[in-house]
């Protein structure tokens, strides 16, 4: 995933989990490891994307 503040790119797990704003949906805030900005993401979408990427690489 990509930080919208500084452009840093990395796996979702490298962004520290902060908290979810919508408990019934996979939307959450994470913190960019580079600029410490807050990034809102769809956890499910991001996870599926990363999973596909890993499968493709194999």
């Amino acid at each position, binding site marked *: 995933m990509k930080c919208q503040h500084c452009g840093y790119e990395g796996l979702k797990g490298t962004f520290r989990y*902060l*908290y*979810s704003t*919508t408990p019934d949906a996979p939307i*959450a805030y994470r913190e960019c490891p580079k600029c410490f900005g807050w990034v809102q993401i769809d956890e499910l979408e991001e*996870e599926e994307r990363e999973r596909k990427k890993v499968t493709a690489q194999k």
Partner: protein
Amino acid sequence: MVTKEEEKEMQGFLDKKQYWWWADKARTTRLSKLRSAVWFKGARGSAYIPGVKIDPCGCKIYTDVFQSKDPVEPGAWTRAKADAAVLDRIPIFVIDDARIVGYCGAAPNVIFWIPYFAHAINEDLYNDRSGLFEEKDREWIKKDLDWWRPRTYQAACERILTRKEKMESALAIITLGQAHLNGFETAVFDHEWAFKGYGHIINAIDAKVKEARDRLQGIGELGPNTFPMNAPEDLPLIEKLDNLQAMKWTMEASVRWIKRYSRLAKILAENFETNPERKIELMRIHETCAKIATEPPEHIWESIQHHHFLDILKRYECSETAWPSRPDFYHWPFYKKDVIDEKNIARDDVIDYIGEWQLRTFETNRPWSRLYREIMTGGSGPLVWTIGGVDPETGEDACSDLTDDILTAARLTRTSEPTYGFRWHSKARPQTLRQVFECIRHGLGYPSIRHDEILIQNMMTNYGYSVEEARTWVHAACMSPACTTKETAQPIRYGNPTIVSSPAMSFAIFDGWDPVTKMQAGHHTGDVTTFDTWEKFYNAWIKQLQYIYWTLMRGLEKDRWIRMKQYPRVWISAMYERCVDAGLSCDEVKEHGNPWMTTSCHMDQFDGLVAVKKLIYDEKKYTWAQLRAMLLANWEGYERERMDFIRVPKWGNDDSYCDDIIVKAHKDINLQTQKPQTEWCGNSPLYLPENVSVYVVCSTKIGAQPNGRRWGDTLYDGGCSPGAGLDKKGPTAVLRSVGKLDHVRDFKATLLNQRLNPTQLAGEKGVQLFMGYMRAWHDLGIDHVQFNMVDNETLRAAQKEPEKYPELMVRVAGYSAHFVELSRKCQDTIMARTVQEI
């Protein structure tokens, strides 16, 4: 006089729902001036706001007295002498335009503090980076604190606590400290006694002293030794005489302190004030204080001043965290005489007095640890004033014009404290219910609404109170009802430890191991992967809850013992007739008890319980090994699976599968964790789920949960509220679910947060809709509900431009706060709550 133009402008503000601008126009110039001169002492995030300081006077005076104490004098004497010295030496002041005087502290911007309770708090304050002490004082304060460290109440308690108990208190995983770490109490006044006045109490003490002294010396018609000694009965009189002497000193010091205000007002009037109208007001303050220093109040302005002094004096002795009282009931006889019968004061002027009293209350706070500042972020209480309800003798409606005036004053001052709890009952007069609704519609977040009939039954059923006793109830702190009679008024906050209960779920899953601290924290209840039946898991979970509750009750009662034997509260003891009768401290005399255990972060684990039953035992979709792995990973990489756990039926949707499990679990908790315990007064406690901001603070203290919550996410905000946004079936379904719980037998009380749509509830139609909703709530026998009525559009705008919304208030959970003073996370969770269309 309000002109037509002004009236139009004010109506415009109401139409646009800009209630703060309305209040700005509607309140008197005096109230506006007083309001702008107030220093708010609550925390923003976890820090006091800039300019607020800790008052070092108490430290200086206490250290002087304790360092020079007579080596043979009893502890109660030293404590009483220290309190008396504070009242004699602390600077006092009268604020311009004020008609109610009395503050706990030497200046309007300071928080009074004595180093007597917890060295943890002493050092927390001393080391605060924001500089809570003036640089010039730091050196001597440091010396004093070093002297106090081994002599505090905390040090004495820690002598008898086990290493694990001390660690559990300090770590704040299953509790938020204990009395010895928090140093605060919540004393409920013996109302009739306290309103008899200090002179009466001093005379009563004198009579008891004479009685005890005569008996100890065997005095009769022949002088001393007319009677032989009966040592087992007579020797305890020595301790009683010591206690009574100490009580008398604190009462005499109170009289002197009040007389200082009387003198100061006169000096100001005669020497400094040039405005003739203000001179008259100052002379009125002078006369009022001179009189109520010893005599009981006779007029409404005297009764309010007396009541205010009581609560300020209470705070000089101990940092009180609440303001248990029932102002509309206590002051009604005075109001009736002065406003209705004799017309000594105009009704509008009483509203002004009440508004001022609200401001004098709002400005108080106590020296809190950083943890507690964060738990009460944006608030300085909760100072819940109880209104409404019924007359204790007749059972008839106790709502009056005074109740209405209090609610009117609340809309005018718009302070987050005091906050109100309204005792809603079937006989309550409609015009007062309308006032209640208007406060909620104005976005104050209060009054919270309590089911009077249910709570009276609850107290009678669980503690054996008579109906007349139960009907006197007031909020002891945020939620817990407490009686105010001679035998029942309680001096200590039982819920002091504040249990955090959802860790029980983690403990049950990890055999007592806590994934956050990575320590063995609970009981060893077995390897969950070997639990082949649902019952095995359920029983392990109950055992973990027993561990949590029993650990904390043990600590609480040990703390009580130390207070009773070594660290007495003398002033407040004199405020209980039964203590004066017995000559014993309030911690020792057993009130007809009313214990409870405040329980935070309570509901999450129940939705987790349902998810475990459904997905592991009923459908066998997941194994324990899988769930444990997902929880340990904080669901990272398992988002699809997490959504499975989220989609399991949740509390608050009137779903019988889910609700049946949760209702049974509530009963079991009461029977298996509460009923087996007996506290000092001989009663079993009841648990009381509610949250203040603990649900935010604990978001990083409690690991991932099977309800789909991740570590970091806030917990459920209420005591029986559904998770924010998880109630999908509308307001009636929420009430139906919550109504399935037994609000009379299973717990002390519980907190239901709801959000209503301000647009839907506009105008007269809105009033009718609200009353209809409240009828459904009342019929279902639910003990509590409180509302937010601010839309997300406004809240979002306030997040973006906080400087434009300094007056916007919201209900957090158990207290109200200014929205912009809350942390971003707390703001977000309030916005995530479902807005119900009723």
